[in-house]
């Protein structure tokens, strides 16, 4: 009979090794799935994990794209992780991301066609404000009426999607677009664009912001009183209250920060990779970021790696789809498996697996 025995302290070895074990297990399980689907498993696995990084034909393009794809996930996940640590459940980052993009784009388009260096920073501030305001709805309802923030933040995603459609069709619609939905292309307007800073590197302001968020998150949690309070509130809410932590302030702070960062991610995307407000602007980053946050163990550095790994499976999955005619559903299932294994192998960090002599209790 197998038995789990809690380690006195987490194993440093398995902390580093378990993700690799998970990837190997996923390759085996995923390979079997691809084989059942009639594809060459070795080729499929190589296309997903190897080609985006080292294929001679693509890699010079795909590698920087990892940063582009990972940046919004990391940015949003950093914000969410603070709340999740404190027991504040913001499930609606997707809505805050959308509202950030709308506010940011609206701020820029309001002064179109003025060209000024101040416009882009102003758009960032407007976007952060938009995300923050959208997150303040569940925060205020939670602190004033004790309304559950999971429900409010989640349902507000749908409201935000409706507003997005309204904006793409109405107020923000490109007046020169012949009645078609969608705003002007912000990435083509110099004052509003968020381009690659150095061509071929993938670095845009959103990537820079994501790295800065990782550092700031790390410092906050390790060095700052507020970080301590967040951790305390999550692990021992009553003790936190005795220690003078105001739950209401914490809710406002955590939802506010995650909304603000999600909003920022929204502006960076709408001014850069996505380029415009359109009906289908939202692509699920807000939900994927929740997974990224937990894969990173709610730890800023962990989130950085988790975001990059998720981005790799997206980009590798895209390559596998059109190189090998794999259905996108197979890639989804494969990503699901990878997540399962990553989460499951973490047990080796905290527990020992023992063969026990007697029946387990």
């Amino acid at each position: 009979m197998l038995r789990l025995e809690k380690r006195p302290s987490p194993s440093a070895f398995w902390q580093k090794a378990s993700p690799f074990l998970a990837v190997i297990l996923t390759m085996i399980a995923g390979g079997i799935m691809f084989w059942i689907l009639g594809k060459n498993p070795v080729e499929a696995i190589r296309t997903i994990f190897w080609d985006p990084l080292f294929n001679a034909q693509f890699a010079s393009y795909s590698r920087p794209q990892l940063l582009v794809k990972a940046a919004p996930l990391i940015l949003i996940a950093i914000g969410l992780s603070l709340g999740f640590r404190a027991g504040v459940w913001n499930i609606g980052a997707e809505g805050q991301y959308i509202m950030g993009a709308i506010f940011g784009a609206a701020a820029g388009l309001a002064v179109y066609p003025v060209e000024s260096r101040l416009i882009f920073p102003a758009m960032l501030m407007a976007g952060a404000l938009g995300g923050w305001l959208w997150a303040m709805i569940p925060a205020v309802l939670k602190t004033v009426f004790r309304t559950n923030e999971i429900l409010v933040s989640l349902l507000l995603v749908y409201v935000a999607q409706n507003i997005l459609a309204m904006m793409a069709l109405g107020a923000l619609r490109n007046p020169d677009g012949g009645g078609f939905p969608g705003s002007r292309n912000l990435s083509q307007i110099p004052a509003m664009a968020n381009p690659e800073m150095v061509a071929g590197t993938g670095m845009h302001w959103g990537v820079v912001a994501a790295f800065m968020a990782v550092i700031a998150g790390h410092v906050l949690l390790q060095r700052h009183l507020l970080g301590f309070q967040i951790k305390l509130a999550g692990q021992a809410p009553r003790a936190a209250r005795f220690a003078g932590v105001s739950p209401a302030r914490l809710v406002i702070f955590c939802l506010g920060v995650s909304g603000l960062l999600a909003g920022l991610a929204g502006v960076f995307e709408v001014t850069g990779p996505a380029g415009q407000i359109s009906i289908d602007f939202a692509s699920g980053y807000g939900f994927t970021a929740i997974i990224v946050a937990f894969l990173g163990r709610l730890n800023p550095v962990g989130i950085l790696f988790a975001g990059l790994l998720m981005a790799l499976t997206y980009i590798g999955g895209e390559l596998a789809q059109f190189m090998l005619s794999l259905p996108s559903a197979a890639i989804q299932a494969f990503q699901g498996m990878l997540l399962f294994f990553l989460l499951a192998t973490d047990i080796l960090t905290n527990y020992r697996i023992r063969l026990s002599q007697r029946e387990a209790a």
Partner: protein
Amino acid sequence: MFGSIDPALLLAALMVNSVPIMLAATGELVTEKAGVLNLGVEGMMIMGAMCGFATAVVTGSPLLGFLGGALGALALSLVFGVLTQLLLTNQVATGLALTLFGLGLSSLIGQGYVGIKPPATGKLDLGPLAEIPFLGRALFAHDWMVYVSILLVAGVWWMLTHSRAGLILRAVGESHEAAHALGYKVTRIRFLAILFGGAMAGLGGAYISLVRVPQWTDGITAGAGWIALAIVVFASWRPWRVLAGAYLFGGVTVLQLNLQAAGSAIPVQYLSMAPYLITILVLVIMSSGRGKAALNAPACLGQNFHASR
């Protein structure tokens, strides 16, 4: 403003509309009452929709179809159970991964089933009841699954509040340490609750693919699982409130489409946001009025348990 909308037909429509989210939410409620947060409802629902559809098409029996749907989703929830209960993974992340996996897997299995019609699920003949003016058309002219779903809500309510099993389940959700100390097998009880939640989500999914939109297409549940999760919170973990919440949400959805069809003057864009906004609004009113209502969450919700001895 309600001009030409027939209330009997509206009531009838909302009863049908609400079944999938009601079933899935009732299952999730039991899971959460045991202290487990499974965010994979959407993935389990779509597996139920797929497996239910496939079973019904192959066997020609809607009844077996529902059974197949429940089993398919139950199998997926088994994965969740193994991961969270035995391997102690984080429940939120595992649930989201489950949704991703379920969406992918259902689409892979379903490739041969696009463009097929399933066998029809029969209406329940309630004889004279269906003849009652107004009420007959509104309440007593549905397929049998509508009534089964209400019975399931009633059953869960009875189980949670009047049975020993319910007491134990709630104890496990409120304090797994205490329940463990009393000799209850926390992991086993949670496992069962997860499987029940899976089976119910599967039934809800199968209702979509067999009755509400009798067909299979990729992504057919289109987010119903997320609404079910919201309804559990809305209901403050009380079964009858799940029913009320599902009817409220379903009712506003049906009403807004009816208002459009009837040519109401309210702008469409506000109508289409209405189900979400009104659900939030009602919850705000309830949670502010009754003080404790919002604080009814099981104390151990989302926390993993490992018996050290």
